Structures are given as C-alpha cells and as structure tokens.
C-alpha cells in the first residue's frame, strides 16, 4: 500500500507504525511520529496500524546550534 512519509509517497507493507520503524531501522526513541497530523504516544506505535493513503511524519531530534 501507499503512504506518504515526510511528504514522499512510498510503497510499504502493511502493519503498525512500529513495523515501519523497524523496516526503516529507526530507533523508536529517536523519533516523534505523527500520523495524519496526530502525534502518537510512544506506547501506541505498536498498536497503530497504517492504512493506505496515511500521511506519516517522522520528526527527528535536531540538536545543533553552535
């Protein structure tokens, strides 16, 4: 199915947000996740199933400034 990840359409296998993070080798502690403009609690990553057309936003920490 197709979802949008950070604005880019991608074909992914179904499953939960946690499955998607695992497939992309993203450590869940390193990212804040929004699905369809809604911020997910970390405990909901494994229970939130993705649907065709969902908009997923991965927000990574950005720390520098010096």
């Amino acid at each position, binding site marked *: 199915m197709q979802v949008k990840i950070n604005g880019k359409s991608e074909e992914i296998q179904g499953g939960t947000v946690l499955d998607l993070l695992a497939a992309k080798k993203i*450590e869940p502690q390193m990212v804040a996740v929004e699905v369809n*403009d809604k911020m997910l609690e970390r405990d909901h990553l494994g229970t939130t199933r993705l649907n065709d057309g969902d908009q997923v*936003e991965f*927000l990574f920490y*950005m720390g*520098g*400034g*010096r």
Partner: protein
Amino acid sequence: MEFTDEQISRYSRHILLPEVGGKGQKKIAKAKILLVGAGGLGSPAALYLAAAGVGTIGLIDSDVVDLTNLQRQILHHTPDVGRSKVLSGKEKIQALNPDVQVSMYEERLTAGNALKIFSDYDVVIDGVDNFTAKFLINDACYFANKPLVHGGILRFDGRVTTIIPKQSACYRCVFKQPPPAGLVASCQEAGVIGVLAGIIGTIQATEALKLVLGIGRPLTNRMLDFDARKTQFREIHVKRNPKCALCGDHPTITELFDDGDPYAGCTVRPDTQPKAVRL
C-alpha cells in the same frame, strides 16, 4: 523616546514599511532579546538584531572562541580566537550599531540562573548545541512566560519553530525528553555546513522581530525544516499535547531542572548518521 536625525536615517528602510513605521521602530528600540549561545545561530541573529536597532541584546555563553568556530560563527573573527565569546560578540554588535545595549552573561545556562535571566527579556532565541540546554530553555520560557524561537542545525539540515507558552505547542509537546545519550552523536563528530547557521539564525531573528512588532503570523505550531542539499523547506504541523509533561493538562514538571548530560550530543537522522571520517 525620540529618534535623532541620524537614527531616522539609519532605520529609514524600516520606517518606510507601513507594518513598522516610526512606531514599530520604537518598539524595536525598546525590545530586549536574549540570545542563549553566541555561536552559529546566535551570530547571524545578533548581527541582524543589532542592525535592526534592538534596544537590548543579551548574550549568554561561557565559551571562548575556538578556531573551529570561525567556519560558521560570523560574530567572531580570527583575532578573537581564545577570547570570550560574549565579549567578542558585544564588540561586533556595538561596532555595527552603538545604539544597542549588550548584556553579557559569561556563564552556562542552568536551572539555577535561567529564570532570573529570562525574566528581563521579551523574547528568547535558542542557539545552543545540546539537548539538555534546549529542554531547559523550553521549560524556562514556559515558567517565565516568554516567547521562544527555537532553532537547530546539523549537517545539511536545519529547523526553526516559535513557541508561545500556554498558547502553542512547546518542544516537549513533540519531543518529550532528550534522546538517550548513547544514541546521539556529538556535534563535533557530526559536522555542519556553515551557511546553515546563517539561514536558520536569520529566520530566528525574523521571528523575534515579528514578535516584538506584533506583525504577521508567527511560526507557532509549525516546525519549519530546511534541507540544504535539496534547498527545500518543509512545514510540519504540530499541536499542543494535552499529555505534555510541562504544558499539558496534568503537568508533572513543576519546576526547572537540568534534564540529562549537558555534553550529550546533537542528533541523528538515520540516513545521515555520521560515518567515520576518512582522511
């Protein structure tokens, strides 16, 4: 206060703008803006805010200028290597515009001094390089009720967002706590393209001036991410989180604290993990 003829000339391109005018320029002249960090982001912000005629600019930084800073920290020049950053910054600001008062805080921002310093300012600009300080600044702005212009840069990526406490999403609404120290790279390891500091720091200064003038639409509830490789901006909508430990309905953070190791790193995007430097 009245402007002198010289000041009217100096600020004429502002005064010509209907959104600023003489009245707005007076607001700028009365404004007090605090820069936490006189480094990459703080440099362009300090220079443009000085040029704009901001009445008081506060500089917090405990460091001295290092040779490796000069690739992006344009407030400091080659002869400043080894000198205090706040002193070097004050000299550049006042050389550009002697109208500006500069308050120097040659110290680290801590849970102990943050509220006292912040209480004297109208707007706070985050130009620090570690998560402990970024979370501390977010929390202190909430408790002191001061608008915050947050910024971050790393490698080819930058981010800006404006936070108006109790009105818009705070940093903790999105990122609950600093990332685990073992998972982040230090800024020194990660590198940054110098011009990014200019882009992001200048947007931060723009946001601060808009807040002072009360014009336009602030960058609240939006994270503006910039990718220098693609020259592309993206806006990510964020919302206040009712479960936020700081500004939510049932806050668990009720006083300032230093959250984590102040030397914990910058950040990591999985596709841009720093690789070993090959010489």
